[in-house]
């Protein structure tokens, strides 16, 4: 573990990059150029840190020694690198897509939008590279706050109400649940550093551990474990790139990532197995997986359906972790990247549909597939990945989950995974089917519905192809995950 400035640089490049973005208010092309440059730069820095991590080392950087035993510090390890790679790579595509989307719709306040986005991605990488719980909390809150202007971008009454719900859930849970959990951990362990094997073993009894675990799971409301999920559908009022990236990739993944960090590096899988606490995770996750999938079936608004789908998919990762078997945990972690690529494609498609046809409800999208073949093809591939069918990447993670459940002798969980995958199919396939094969309802509304602009099509095609590619070449992801589970 060498001391290096680079982890901080990875975070700062977009945090400080928000300043030139704000200053280029009057020159949209310059501003957009900044956004893309920062995105590319961030990915470059993150990727450059990869070799050391794969070799078994890493980097760290202490920002400030604020509390005894708890500095604000960054560390690049396998798990953080995994998440950061996914997030920073997808950020490039999202930036390009955002530019296309905002310009096509001539949205207002674009500077504020891009600046907040820059801060949000900085916070995401900050969470990925946090060395301890305090630093994670800091960046977690930064993410909640910087995404508020993005969620409420439209600034109408609906945005206001949704924004209120967004903050109530996210800030309320972090102050009322997460902060006490953090303090309790500090009192028990004397430190908040993320350590392999956890920091609580031998210092905590079963009932306190159970309470603490529940506090953490609900405290990280970004993971949308029911009942702390209601902010996510409300946040769909945001412009689609926001929904796609932040709520398909960054914000929600930060929540699950944080819970997984707690599971692996604060509690430690051995302690959880010893105290039989895995069942809390699997129980909460199963309820969410099934519940969210069922609700998704009833949603007509495409983005809301995708939102509930996300809620369900996130809990797969927690389900995997809760199985406490190697295959299960691998599956859970793998699903982080598989779902990210899949879900972002789906949202980008939803946005493309909105730009091209101004439709948000599935019932109005009959026959659209014939007019937007690329978009719908991407949608099809991504939904296959999420459902878990080969030859898409999602198959690998779901398969791993099933194997993990069998390994742990938890056949009920096998049923949960299979049933929910069926439900996933039930809410995805009709969209594709109706898009390609159904007759369009209104003839006159069709005028010139063409494919979405190129700036939108390219990113979504790339991510869809990645869903395929990840099935064929999952080695990087698997290698990093291996390092997490057995360092």
């Amino acid at each position, binding site marked *: 573990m060498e001391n290096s400035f680079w982890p901080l640089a990875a975070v700062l490049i977009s945090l400080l990059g928000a300043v030139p973005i704000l200053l280029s208010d009057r020159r949209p092309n310059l501003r957009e150029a900044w956004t893309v440059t920062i995105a590319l730069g961030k990915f470059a820095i993150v990727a450059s840190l990869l070799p050391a991590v794969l070799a078994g080392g890493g980097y760290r950087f202490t920002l400030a020694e*604020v509390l005894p035993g708890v500095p604000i510090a960054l560390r690049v390890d396998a798990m953080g690198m995994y998440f950061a790679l996914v997030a920073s790579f997808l950020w490039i595509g999202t930036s390009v897509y955002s530019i296309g989307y905002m310009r096509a719709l001539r949205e207002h306040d674009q500077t504020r939008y891009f600046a907040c986005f820059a801060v949000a991605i900085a916070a995401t990488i900050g969470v990925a590279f946090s060395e301890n719980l305090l630093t994670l909390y800091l960046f977690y809150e930064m993410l909640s*706050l910087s995404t508020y202007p993005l969620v409420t971008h439209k600034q109408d009454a609906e945005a206001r109400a949704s924004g209120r719900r967004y903050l109530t859930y996210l800030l309320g849970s972090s102050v009322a649940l997460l902060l006490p959990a953090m303090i309790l951990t500090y009192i028990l362990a004397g430190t908040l550093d993320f350590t392999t094997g956890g920091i609580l073993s031998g210092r905590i009894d079963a009932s306190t551990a159970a309470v603490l675990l529940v506090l953490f799971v609900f405290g990280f409301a970004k993971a949308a474990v029911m009942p702390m999920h209601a902010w996510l559908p409300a946040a769909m009022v945001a412009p689609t790139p926001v929904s796609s990236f932040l709520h398909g990739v960054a914000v929600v993944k930060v929540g699950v990532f944080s819970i997984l960090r707690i599971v692996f590096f604060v509690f430690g899988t051995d302690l959880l197995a010893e105290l039989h606490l895995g069942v809390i995770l699997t129980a909460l996750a199963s309820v969410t997986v099934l519940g969210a999938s069922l609700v998704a079936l009833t949603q007509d608004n495409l983005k809301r359906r995708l939102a509930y789908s996300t809620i369900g998919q996130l809990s797969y990762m927690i389900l995997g972790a809760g199985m406490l078997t190697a295959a299960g945990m691998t599956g859970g972690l793998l699903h982080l990247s598989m779902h990210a690529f899949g879900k972002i494609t789906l949202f980008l498609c939803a946005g493309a549909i909105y730009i091209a046809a101004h439709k948000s409800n599935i019932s109005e999208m009959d026959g659209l597939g014939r007019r937007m073949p690329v978009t719908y093809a991407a949608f099809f591939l991504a939904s296959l990945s999420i459902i878990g069918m080969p030859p898409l990447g999602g198959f690998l993670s779901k398969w791993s989950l099933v194997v993990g459940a069998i390994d742990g002798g938890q056949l009920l969980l096998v049923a949960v995974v299979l049933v929910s995958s069926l439900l996933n199919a039930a809410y995805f396939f009709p969209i594709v089917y109706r898009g390609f094969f159904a007759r369009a309802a209104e003839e006159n509304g069709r005028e010139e519905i063409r494919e979405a602009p190129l700036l939108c099509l390219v990113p979504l095609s790339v991510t869809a192809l990645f869903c395929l590619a990840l099935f064929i070449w999952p080695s990087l992801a698997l290698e990093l995950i291996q390092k997490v589970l057995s360092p």
Partner: protein
Amino acid sequence: MSFLNLHMYALAAPLVGAMLLFAAGRFGRRLVMPVVLAALSLSLAASVLVFLEVLTAGPFSYTVGNWEAPWGIELVVDHLGALVNLLIASVALTACVSSLRRSSAELPERRHQFFTLYLILIAGMHGLALTGDAFNLYVLLEITSITTYGLIALGKGRAPLSSFNYIVMGSIGACFYLLGIGYLYILTGTLNMADLHRIIPLLDGRGAALATAFAFLMVGLWIKMAFFPLHVWLPNAYTDMPDGAAVLIAPLMTKVTVFLMIRVMFSIFSPVYEFIQHMAVQHIIVGVASVGIVCASAMALGQKDLRRMLTYIIIAEVGYMVGGLWLANAKGMTGAILHIVNDALMTLCLFLAAAAIAHRTGALGFERLGGLYRRMPLTMAAFTVGALSMIGVPPTCGFFSKWYLLLGGIEAGQWLYVGALIFSSLVNAVLFFRIIEIAYFRTPAEDSPVHEPGKGPRREAPQALLQPLVVTAAALIGVGLATGPLVERVIRFALPVGY
């Protein structure tokens, strides 16, 4: 200049400035700004140097006029005193830039009188931070209070009445304090703090009188710091006073009084007396503090005016500090002392923002705050940082003092206090996000005087109001990140022996 006198410059500079202003101000209106800025800059420079000296060489004492203690008045500069002294000087200089600008708008023809009182108030506060004599403390306390009464009365509307009510309650507080040290004098024959500290443990069989003395001292100071339920004078007084005065008084007065309570508790009496010999009292006080935090937060929810809301938050914050000190453990005391610094800065930031907003909108009712993010983005950005600090979001400083206070509360088993802290954080989140929402969403009223169609709605506050605000907001994050060294190298030495 011999080093040992530096702290005197911190005290003397504003005092001399005040006299200069009063004498010459009538003829030289232009003198006000240079005199005030010069005096407070000198004061700040001296305070910084004194602070650095205490950090490197340790505490020292100074006898005024060379009359030996304990008969002469002794000034004691230790870690806590130097810290508070530096805090006063920095807040004063930052606030005065804003006050100078606001007072030209609010009371243009009375500026030199206003600033005379202003400078005497600051001198008095410096004295409070430095004094080592209990009676001298009373005199300085009254100096600061009297100037405050005057400054409040210069406001508009019902300010004179609010000031008068404050006079009545504040005098009761000061008289109780005087009564307390009267008892102590009868018991010990001395008024020097170090001497009292030495003699009090030797007094046997005087338990009742000592306890009465302590009670009077405490209640007197509680009235002055607006500790619930003795807080009734504060909302009116702080809301009605002119903006130029509010940015100075609101951040400092209650915190300096909390510091005085620490002086009484640890430099005159000792933790053994309060915490070990009279343990039941400790629980009662922490309980009252907790109730106070909850009630003040709840009352803040009902307010429709920004300034008034902030005054109730001040009352809640006082509850944090008093409760934290009476937790009787190192973490709680560290949190309380840290909170003196942090809360002063947070309150300064919020009141400066309120002054800037009032400058443009004229009043601070919630309905006037619409669309402020568009009109005054920098002001609102700084306000947001202040709000986040009040809620307790890292890396702003407010988070770290809350951390210590929560840890202290859990360690002491005071669950009511811990619950009150969390409740208050949530209420602060609601309070401030209400405002942030209004400022973010509502468009400015069409007929509002600042809406200039065609010119774009942005009309930021003038530089004199904006610069101190931005500096303070940055300081909130800077001090937050510097919490480690602050606690390790300063506050740790401010705790009483054994903690």
